[in-house]
C-alpha cells in the first residue's frame, strides 16, 4: 500500500544530513514551506547548500535558516530582499557563498535535473558577466550558453492539497518552482493544507504526480510570511 503521509514535521525532516543540497520552493512569500524550514532549523543540519529563488524575508523561514548559519551556499536568482538583511550581511562578511543564476535558467536547470537532461544551451545571459566561465556555442547563427542540470538531496515544498500517493495541486502563484524541485530532488517532502485519500484529486488536474513525492505532512493552516512578519 502506498501511503506517503508522515506524522509530523520533525519526523519528515529527521534524516536530512549535514552538507546536503536542499531545494526550497517558493517565490517570495508564495509557496515558501515555512513550517518544514522551521523543522529543519530545529533538526540542526548544517553546511547546507540551498537552491531557491530568494533568500527569505523577515527573520523566519529561509531567512531564519540562513541567519542560524546553517547554509554554506545559496544558488538563487534574487538574494536581495526588502524585508531581510540576513543574507546580505553574511554575504558582505564573506560568510556565505552565492551562485547567482538568471531566474529562467534556474528554473530550467532544475527542470533538467528532474528530467535526466545533463545540460542544455540557452540564450539567456550571453555577453553578460554571468556568462563568465561558461561554454558558449553558436546554433543557427545565434550564441547560446551551456548550462548544467541542478539536482538536490532534498526538496522542501508547499502544496494546497495532496493525496496519500503524493499527488499535488498548488494554490495560484504559489506553484512557482515546486513542481520542478519535486522532480529534481532525491527526497521530496511536502507540507500541504489538505491531505486526503487517493481518488480525491482529479487525474486531469494533478500538477505534481505522486511519483515525484516521498513524504507528505499535513499542516492545517499555513503560517503565511506576511502574517508572521507583522507579529
Amino acid at each position, binding site marked *: 500500500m502506498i501511503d506517503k503521509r508522515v506524522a509530523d514535521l520533525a519526523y519528515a525532516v529527521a534524516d536530512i544530513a549535514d552538507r546536503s543540497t536542499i531545494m526550497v520552493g517558493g517565490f*517570495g512569500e*508564495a509557496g515558501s514551506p515555512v513550517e518544514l524550514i522551521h523543522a529543519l532549523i530545529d533538526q540542526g543540519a548544517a553546511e547546507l547548500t540551498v537552491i531557491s529563488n530568494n533568500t527569505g524575508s523577515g527573520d523566519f523561514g529561509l531567512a531564519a535558516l540562513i541567519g542560524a548559519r546553517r547554509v554554506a551556499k545559496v544558488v538563487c536568482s534574487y538574494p536581495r530582499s526588502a524585508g531581510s538583511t540576513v543574507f546580505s550581511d553574511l554575504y558582505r562578511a564573506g560568510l556565505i557563498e552565492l551562485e547567482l543564476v538568471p531566474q529562467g535558467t534556474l528554473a530550467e536547470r532544475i527542470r533538467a535535473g528532474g528530467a535526466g537532461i545533463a545540460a542544455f544551451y540557452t540564450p539567456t545571459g550571453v*555577453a553578460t558577466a554571468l556568462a563568465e566561465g561558461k561554454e558558449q556555442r553558436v546554433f543557427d547563427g545565434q550564441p547560446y550558453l551551456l548550462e548544467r542540470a541542478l539536482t538536490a538531496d532534498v526538496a522542501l515544498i508547499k502544496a494546497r492539497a495532496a493525496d496519500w500517493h503524493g499527488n499535488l495541486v498548488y494554490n495560484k502563484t504559489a506553484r512557482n518552482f515546486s513542481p520542478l524541485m519535486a522532480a529534481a530532488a532525491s527526497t521530496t517532502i511536502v507540507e500541504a493544507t489538505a491531505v486526503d485519500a487517493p481518488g480525491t484529486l482529479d487525474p486531469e488536474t494533478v500538477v505534481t504526480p505522486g511519483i515525484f513525492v516521498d513524504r507528505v505532512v499535513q499542516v492545517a493552516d499555513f503560517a503565511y510570511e506576511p502574517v508572521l512578519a507583522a507579529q
Partner: protein
Amino acid sequence: MSDLSASKVGKLKGWTRNQMAALAAADIADGSYVNLGIGIPELIAHHIPPDREIVLHTENGLLGMGPAPDPQAVDPDLINAGKKPVTTLPGASFFHHADSFAMIRGGHLDLCVLGALEVAANGGLANWSTGATDAVPAVGGAMDLVSGVKAVHILTSHCTKEGSPKLVERCTRPLTGKGVVNRVYTDLAIFDIGAAGFDLVCLAPGVDFSDVIERTAAPVNDIRPKDERTWT
C-alpha cells in the same frame, strides 16, 4: 551627442511618469502578451486604451494578471514578480516557472517593458547591477526577458538623479543583454534604436532637440518628419 557634464544642463519638466506610461501603453497592439517590469513599467497597466485587450504575464507563473485587489481580498499566494498582491482576469492561467520562462525564452511574449540604469546606442541594456563592489548581486528574470521576448521597450528617466545621461554610447554598468532594446521612453523623448545611434521619434512638450542632445551621451538622429521638427 554631447559630453557636457550633468551639472551644466538644467532640469526639464518633460512628461510625468504616468504620461510616459500612457505613451508606452498606446504603442501596445491589441491582443499582445506583455510582461511589465517592476517599478515605473507597472504603471502601464493603468493606461491601456479601453478598446484594446492586453494579456499581462508575470514571470512567477500567471498569464491574465489583473489589477491589485481590495485590501480585504489579498491572497498571499497570488502575487506578481514584484511580490505585490494582484488578481486574475477571465482567461487567466497559472503555471510553474519552467513553463513561465519557456514563454519568455521561447519568444512567445510580444513585448516586455523594463526600467534601465543605462541604455546603449547599439541596444545594449544595463538594468540588473550597479556594478558597485559592495552590492549583493541579484538578477531575477531580467536577462531571460531581454534574450527571449520579441520586443524590449525601456521606460526610464532620461538622466539619473545626479543628472548623468542614462542613454550612452556603451553601457558602463554590467550588461543585462547586448543589442536587445528596440525603443526607449524617457521623460524627455521617445527613441528607437537605430543603425547609428538613438533615432528620435518624438519630443515631450517644451523639450527641444538640443535639450535631448545635451542630455544624451550618444549620437541622436532626428528621424521625425520635417513638419514635426522644432529647432531651437
